[in-house]
């Protein structure tokens, strides 16, 4: 059997534990936050590693971001990924999910395409879940989202995905994009030996010189989303005391009064 060519698309995000909301500007204060690999992307990498150990393959982790995002790739190579690719160029900066998916799909194409591309389900800093499916659409790959279990049989991926209140097992063909849920698996830790090898090997940089994408379709220029305003939602007012069962009549009458029940 031919070795699987596997990619994992990842993002470096500020550690959500360290983010606070600036009380004055009401925007996210990321200045104190350490950069980490987007948590479900670590699960996506683990899914790739498990697939590789069962069926053989070569794993390339890819990210689009500033030069400092190299540490995220090296971290995942320390966990066992074979190659790291950093897509970095000023023209790619400020991208929303549309040009991000377009650029990453173009990179996958530029690297000769993959049998399977893994992504995390969503990023912790924007939570759209757009990029994985976007990559699949741009490349014309099959796709499965919110997946926590993968088998590979007769050239098909048998995946189990979370749907509201249940799970669904489906079969997708090759090539495919599969997005992995947070905590889908237990990611292995990086080891010293692998990290040393990763730092020795280094990562490959790809800029728009190689990709030759139309500057109007990437970065801020290629982003259809315009953020008009940001608002902080006030904390919901909590009922100070929970009514006891003996007050059920009162509760029901309040609900009727408010038109919640008839």
């Amino acid at each position: 059997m031919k070795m699987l060519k596997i990619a994992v698309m990842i993002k470096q995000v500020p550690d959500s534990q360290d983010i606070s909301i600036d009380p004055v500007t009401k925007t996210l204060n990321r200045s104190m936050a350490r950069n980490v690999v987007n948590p479900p992307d670590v699960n996506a990498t683990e899914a790739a590693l498990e697939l590789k150990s069962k069926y053989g393959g070569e794993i390339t982790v890819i990210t689009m971001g500033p030069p400092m995002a190299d540490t995220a790739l090296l971290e995942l190579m320390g966990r066992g990924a074979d190659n790291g690719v950093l897509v970095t160029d000023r023209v790619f900066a400020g991208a929303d999910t549309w040009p991000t998916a377009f650029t990453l799909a173009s990179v996958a194409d530029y690297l000769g395409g993959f049998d399977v591309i893994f992504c995390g389900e969503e990023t912790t800093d924007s939570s759209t879940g757009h990029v994985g499916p976007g990559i699949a659409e741009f490349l014309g790959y099959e796709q499965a989202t919110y997946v926590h279990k993968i088998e590979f049989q007769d050239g098909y991926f048998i995946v189990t995905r979370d749907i509201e209140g249940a799970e669904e097992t489906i079969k997708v063909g090759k090539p495919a994009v599969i997005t992995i849920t947070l905590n889908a698996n237990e990611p292995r830790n990086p080891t010293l030996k692998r990290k040393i090898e990763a730092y020795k090997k280094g990562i490959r940089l790809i800029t728009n010189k190689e990709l030759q994408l139309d500057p109007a379709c990437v970065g801020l220029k290629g982003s259809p989303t315009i953020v008009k305003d940001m608002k902080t939602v006030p904390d919901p007012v909590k009922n100070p005391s929970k009514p006891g069962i003996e007050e059920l009549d009162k509760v029901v009458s309040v609900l009727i009064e408010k038109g919640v029940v008839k």
Partner: protein
Amino acid sequence: MPDYDAIVVGAGNAGSAAAITMAQKGLSVLLVDRSDPPGAKNLSGGVLWGNDLARILPKWQNEAPLERFIQDKKIGFLTDKSSIIIDFKTKIFEENKVGYTVLRSKFDPWLAKKAREAGATVIPGITVESLAKKDGKIIGVEESEDIVTASVVILAEGINPRLSIEAGLRGPLQDWEVSVGVKEIIKLSPQKIEDRFNLTSSSGMASEYILGNLEELNVGAFFYTNKDSISLGIVAPMEQLRENGVTHTYDIIEQFKEHPSIAPLIDGGTVAEYGAHMIPEGGLEMVPKLYGDGYMIVGDSAGFGFSNGLVLQGMNYAFLSGILAGETAVEAKGKGDFSSDSLSMYRQKLENSYVLKDLKTFKDIRKVTNNKNMYTTYPKMLESILLEMLWERGQPKKKVRDILGSCAADLKMSKLKTATDFYYIYRRM
């Protein structure tokens, strides 16, 4: 052939300085740190004296992420209601900028980056599990069942040297050897900092206090200005905290922040970060065997620090011990000999430097810093004297000796005890 000439465990000031020293001389060096970016979890009070850093990084003052150079140094005593402070502000500090406030979470990753630029392999985000031993020699480090080998391992683990203890290179940490430092970083605009402390955009103030308002504990405190924040904290001896068993360190730092002379200085600021760390204060007695077959111990792990209650230094000792261990490794590589005998040069170099000289000169300093009168009675006595001298209450004036006499009586201190205390403090400081 070992994988590396040297492995350094820990990217703090001592570890990175050792790695830079060796890499600059062409040794193959692996520097491993638990945090990613390397050194980002490190913590200290925050005043760096960089004379030694210039030996390996001559342009450090232009390149390092520094906060403010120390132009104003204060030392003093706080009692319940008063503060007695010596404010030393000098042009000499401005003309010779070597003392700076720093935030270690920024400074240490920069220093580790310098080690990488010098040619060391710097691996972040890995906690070494144990030291690898063979025939009684340290031959490398172990992690995830892999062994990475080196001719020499430099242990720069910090104040809690787990690997060194587990490998039997030193005993477990004792209460008397350490103090607990608790620190907060309080955000304040540069404008407010410069107005409140009479500073320019680049100058800074560093003060250290003896807290005379706590009955049971010998606690020191610090207060430093950064660019847009204040670093403040308290330092309490572990032994006394354990004996006392009641007072929590967060109560002490709150008391310090609420002191009438401190509260207005941080008014309007918000706490951005807090942390706690141990500080070596055991002096010469806590220094372990510093070298052996295939290893050397540097920085906090070796107990290198200086404290007399009013001066608290550690980073300079870390730099210098790291550099000296690095130089020893370079010489050992030249001789092709990393045995205990060969590495004994490290101890020699330390003996000739201020690191061990200071620890020897001040070997009895703990008798001063452990003297409870230093922290309770004498600050109060000073306060009483100053009240007598500086406060007009429509009473006949007294001579200083009479003031002293009545203060001592009020505080139930015999003249003899006071005299012997001062004699010993004078001799030991």
